[in-house]
């Protein structure tokens, strides 16, 4: 793994945007207790301000000391016991990789019905991501800039392909959707905000305006989510309920002139996006391990982490959408703990400690003056 390099805020948020959007395109009604995708338009509108709120503790922590990540803050605050927090983040990042690979396996086995063995593909994805993590954050950030162009082109093609096939009758009033469905969608969207803990670890190596970038990032993420919901609902209609991966299904149905069978593009887009996501989180995992066991251990951690992800993928291939792997409640709590609770606790204790330190200093000064 390369040394920490400086990347720009733009590069970081492009990387995070791809990591988040790639999870969006894997939307499955099965993941949100079989809800209607259309209901989640309201969920997206609710999740957007909530995401901004979730960003606040991390941004405040950064304001305290921009050169210290959440891991360094925990070292500063909890001293030796910080290992627990760092370990939590390491496991969290590894689980995010596991979630990604498990979802990918589901897609390959249920969505594509290809002839390639699922295990071989997920192993290849993990190995490639391992290489990405080895090359370091700078390489990943630069590569994601190029992948983003591909992503935009794909989205644009899908937009062109799906727009003519959308039927306004497929849309019903957003006000008629059930509250339970909206709640379920909101939980699903917030539980997938693993990019916020990633930001909490990465911001010291980023130059540029992170606050503005965060707002733009979440705005674009939710705009993309809403665009997908509108497009896919309009083109698939009732068929949406029976589709396991609606976005993929919609891409498959495109048939306008030379724009046919965009599922190949979808597969490419998802694989490239997943590569970015897994590389990023594997890198973060290695960063956490390196904090505990030293820099050399982080290289080994990438290899071991990849092996763990491959095994995790193999074990969970046959598990259903109801299993704990895809449980949105479990993920919501994990994400809120990593993105909000820990940074908030660190912020409060750090503030208190600095206030006490300040009082001590004032006391010493007064004593000296006397």
């Amino acid at each position, binding site marked *: 793994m*390369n040394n920490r*390099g*400086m990347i*720009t805020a733009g*590069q970081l948020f492009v990387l995070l945007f791809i990591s988040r959007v790639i999870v969006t395109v894997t939307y499955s009604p099965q993941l949100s207790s079989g809800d209607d995708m259309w209901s989640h338009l309201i969920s997206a509108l609710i999740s957007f301000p909530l995401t901004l709120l979730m960003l606040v503790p991390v941004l405040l922590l950064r304001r305290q000391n921009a050169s210290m990540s959440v891991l360094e803050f925990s070292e500063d605050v909890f001293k030796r016991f910080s290992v627990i927090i760092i370990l939590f983040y390491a496991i969290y990042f590894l689980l995010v990789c596991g979630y990604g690979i498990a979802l990918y396996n589901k897609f*390959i086995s249920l969505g594509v019905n*290809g*002839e*390639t063995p699922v295990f*071989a*593909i997920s192993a*290849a*994805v993990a190995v*490639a991501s391992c*290489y*990405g993590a080895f*090359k*370091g954050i*700078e*390489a*990943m950030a*630069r*590569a994601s*800039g*190029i*992948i983003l162009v591909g992503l935009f082109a794909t989205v644009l093609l899908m937009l062109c392909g799906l727009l003519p096939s959308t039927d306004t009758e497929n849309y019903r009033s957003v006000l008629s959707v059930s509250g339970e469905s909206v709640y379920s969608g909101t939980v699903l969207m917030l539980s997938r905000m693993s990019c916020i803990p990633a930001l909490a670890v990465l911001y010291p190596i980023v130059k540029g305006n992170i606050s503005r970038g965060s707002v733009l990032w979440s705005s674009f993420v939710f705009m993309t989510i809403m665009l997908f919901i509108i497009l896919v609902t309009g083109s698939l209609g009732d068929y949406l309920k029976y589709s396991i991966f609606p976005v993929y299904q919609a891409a498959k149905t495109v048939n306008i002139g030379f724009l*046919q*069978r965009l*599922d*190949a593009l979808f*597969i*490419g887009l998802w*694989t*490239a996006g997943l*590569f*970015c996501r897994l*590389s990023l989180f594997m890198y973060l995992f290695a960063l956490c391990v390196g904090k505990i066991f030293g820099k050399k251990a982080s290289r080994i951690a990438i290899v071991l982490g990849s092996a763990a992800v491959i095994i995790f993928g193999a074990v969970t291939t046959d598990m259903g959408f109801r299993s704990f792997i895809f449980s949105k409640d479990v993920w919501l709590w994990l994400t809120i703990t990593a993105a909000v609770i820990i940074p908030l606790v660190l912020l409060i204790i750090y503030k208190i400690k600095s206030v006490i330190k300040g009082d001590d200093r004032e006391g010493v000064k007064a004593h000296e003056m006397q």
Partner: protein
Amino acid sequence: MYRFISELKNIYGKAPEQKPESKPTPLTVSLDENTERLKKRFNGSADLTVHKMELRGIRFGIITIEGMVNKEILALGVIKPVSEETYEGTPKDAFEKIKSKILYTAEQVEVLTLEDVDKFIMSGFAVIAIDGCAKMLALGIQGFSFRSVSEPDSDVVQRGSKEGFVEPLRINMSLIRRRMKTPRLKFETMTVGSDSRTDICLCYLTDTVSPEILGKLKKRLDSINLKTVMASGYIAPYLEQKGDFSFFSGVGISERPDTVCGKISEGRIAILVDGTPSALIVPFLFVEYFQTLDDYSNRAYFATLTRWLKYIAFFIAIMLPGVYVAVGSFHPELFPSQLLGKIAGSIAATPMPLGVETIVIHFVYEIMREAGLRMPQPLGHAVSIVGALVIGETAVNAGLIGAPTLMVVALTAICSYVIPSLYAPTAILRFLFIIAGAFLGIWGVILLFCMVLVNICGKKSFDVPYTAPVSPFSMTAMRDVFVRAGWKQLSKSTSTVQTMPGTDLQGCESDE
């Protein structure tokens, strides 16, 4: 085999531990002693020539290396005037007279040590020694034969100079100087190779070059521990960033002095190696593979078109066979319906799996290419006929290989010649993409593409990101990347390579 390995070891192996610079051996007043010591140093080598003569009581010696000096100038411009003159006084007076009154060669250097005598005679100088004088006079009358300046074979342009670099270093320096008539252009010579002692020359503009990059380059050149440097390719690996493995090179090569001058004016450094008709250029970025001199001679809109053709050709050259194998083997439904029948029929009719078939055809093609490069020119046609008719047509007619596969390979082969300097990485990557597609389908191709992308994105050439200015992105630089803006636009601001986005010049101390 053992001999071959030891030969390789000899070339690439570490030079023996450099002994601390021994004290130079001063010349003595005795001509015989000096020449004997010199012969001993050369182990009686046949090409060392010592011509002794006696004129009016003073003994002279002219030392040269056979074939390195111009014999006509030596006879008429050195021996004749020296022998026709009268000498009075001491041998030292004779030496001064020869130096200041008799000989008028452009290059005259006084030599005081035996090591310097070695150096000068091996560079084509004639050295005059006088018995009774503890110094010698080196005269620059080089006359070895070399190829005349001609159009380069690989770096061909439609509009522009037809001059290319040749083997002698000094001529290459003059080719650059003729195009850059500014005192800011500096040539700095160094020597590499403990046995070959090959002269190399750094060329740069003093006010444009980055001192950090220059310092780092010198440090890397100093670290070269080769015994022999026969071509610029020997030193190129030493100029790459350490631990930065990639199929793509961070060191550019050009056979054209005009291209090199263009690069120098952008803050880059050219390295000329004596005996090599090409220059190395550092730092070198990925987008430079797609820029040729013709782009700047042609109209902007056409240059933009050709540049895009190059980008597309590059992607076809590395990915098309891989994608074809992946789709044909695992996702045939992705072929357009009109095409599906024909391709499926062809795949079904051939005995080998599609992946193996494509690899075999590529392998045969690479063999034919290699044979075509090495064999005598007249036999080239024979190879073409054998390749096209015997292997190609007959194999398709016999049903051994499919016509669509052959077409894909042929298209790929043509595309790979659009950028000849990228042939080596393209050939390797093409095989890797075929293997990835054959084993993992479209997923394998995409994953390999991502890995290659990360690989080149993580690469740096002298601390300048290899993928700049695409990623990290620079809008102003785009006028010469995805489009080629007109000269009026290009000349509005001049940018140097060290101002590329993401460049983090560390200074030569923190090289590795």
